[in-house]
């Protein structure tokens, strides 16, 4: 654990299922759960571009939310730079940035810039500094020209970019991005990938935790990769080693560890 930026041990999470009224009457004391994580162990060394891949419903977003203090685990431990995400929540919040996969998470009737001003204040930036920082991040994600348009006029790609801009506002050590290139055009997507890897990791020495469905981008920009399936890490390693320096494709390996039967989505419902 000592040198790892992110470290988890036997992390488990189950969400309660909302009961129908009929169930409530029939089995009042039985609660049903979805097991999202079934014992996750990962270790992410410093200054790494770490990619997490896995089928829909495998638990990627859940893991990210636990590591960013938005969801509480049922069992196990998780640390960011040695700080427990449950017991040292306030401290951990100062160490992590998150670009939520949810594109909506802004105020619809405010402009992009007004939204960022609001969040910059919550990150504790004084007014002048906030202004400067906002210009920087807007420039970076290419939204400078559209910054004064209302958020509800943004395309889904622009919304995602604004989410990334917000995640980059605070000076943090670890940046979590959940499918950051999902709705971006090819050039913008490439720009963001380069930024995450070359600027944040290689130049600034930060750690990026990147959930993705795009194996090509992971092959090109990821340093470490973990495959998650059915709430468990199936494989973790250096991208170069796993692919024999590009001799094998990541897709090949992925297929080896993930059954393509959509079991993730339906088969997880367990009783507790």
């Amino acid at each position, binding site marked *: 654990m000592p040198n790892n930026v992110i470290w988890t041990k036997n992390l488990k999470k189950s969400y309660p299922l909302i009961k129908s009224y009929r169930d409530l009457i029939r089995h009042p004391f039985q609660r049903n759960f979805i097991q999202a994580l079934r014992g996750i162990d990962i270790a992410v060394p410093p200054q790494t571009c770490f990619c997490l891949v896995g089928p829909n419903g495998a638990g990627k977003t859940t893991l990210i*939310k636990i590591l960013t203090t938005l969801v509480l685990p*049922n069992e196990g431990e998780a640390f960011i730079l040695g700080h427990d995400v449950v017991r040292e929540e306030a401290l951990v919040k100062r160490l992590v940035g998150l670009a*939520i996969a949810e594109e909506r*998470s802004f*105020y619809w009737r405010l402009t992009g810039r007004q939204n960022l*001003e609001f969040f910059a204040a919550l990150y504790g930036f004084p007014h002048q500094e906030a202004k400067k920082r906002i210009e920087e991040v807007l420039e970076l994600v290419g939204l400078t020209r559209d910054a004064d348009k209302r958020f509800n006029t943004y395309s889904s790609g622009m919304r995602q970019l604004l989410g990334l801009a917000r995640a980059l506002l605070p000076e943090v050590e670890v940046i979590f991005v959940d499918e950051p290139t999902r709705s971006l055009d090819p050039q913008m997507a490439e720009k963001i990938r380069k930024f995450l890897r070359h600027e944040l990791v290689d130049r600034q020495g930060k750690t990026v935790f990147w959930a993705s469905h795009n194996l090509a981008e992971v092959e090109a920009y990821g340093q470490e990769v973990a495959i998650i399936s059915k709430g468990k890490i199936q494989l973790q390693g250096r991208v170069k080693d796993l692919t024999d320096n590009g001799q094998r494709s990541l897709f090949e390996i992925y297929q080896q560890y993930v059954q393509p039967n959509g079991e993730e989505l339906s088969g997880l419902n367990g009783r507790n």
Partner: protein
Amino acid sequence: MWTTRTLWLFFKRDLWEALSYKLNFLFSLFGILFSSATFYFISQLISGQSEVLSKYGGNYFSFVIIGLAFSGVLNIFQEGLPGIIRSAQLLGTLEALLITPTPMAVILLGSSLYPLVYSVLQSLVQIGLALVIFGLKLGTVNWLGAILLFGLTILTYMSIGILSASFILVFKLGNPFSWAFGSLSALFGGVFFPVAVLPGWLRWLSSLLPITYSLEGLRKSLLLSLPLEALWPEIKALLIFSFLLGPLSLFVFRVALKKAKKDGTLTHY
């Protein structure tokens, strides 16, 4: 670090959102006007006939307008803060707020600001319209008393708003707590009629509702020109309510937040 600027930005955020529904302001102005007019005509029927009412100066219109104007504060806190939390849950902004290092109490205070200012303005507009259009007559106003009572009322209802927001956080939909509290307050809190007309056991129920004391005190200070000493029972009651409910509501919200993080209900799923 969490400066007044942070709070101001919260206020601005909600003001902007509200301003984009400009018609709403017009509607609420009409709402105030219509309800004032309705009660103005009703009061033509019943003023001066009631023993109980004579304790408040004998005019039903001035009695009820104070009730209407200030019970609005209650509605706004019941609907304002929980509404903001609810939409933050739906929009996904709640997670974005909670991942910032801003303390929860600041987020709650900030989110309460707009509903607060809005409700104060609404009360003032209602009283103003009544003065100008319907010939409302106030006594020699005890300003200090009125402001003190109003401040304590707001503190109390802010806590109730936070309690109600906690409910939303965990159960996502529907808020029977707020609904029940609102209906009880409207019926037994002395909004439309003096609680003295209620039978004894129901009067006991009114004595548990903070609004009873707010309205009684405000009527004393706005209509009856009573000095500060005469307002002491109401001030005392509201002090007790705010001292109890303030910490309780923050505690309950903290617990609710924890539960929401356990159940994954910070965002609508």
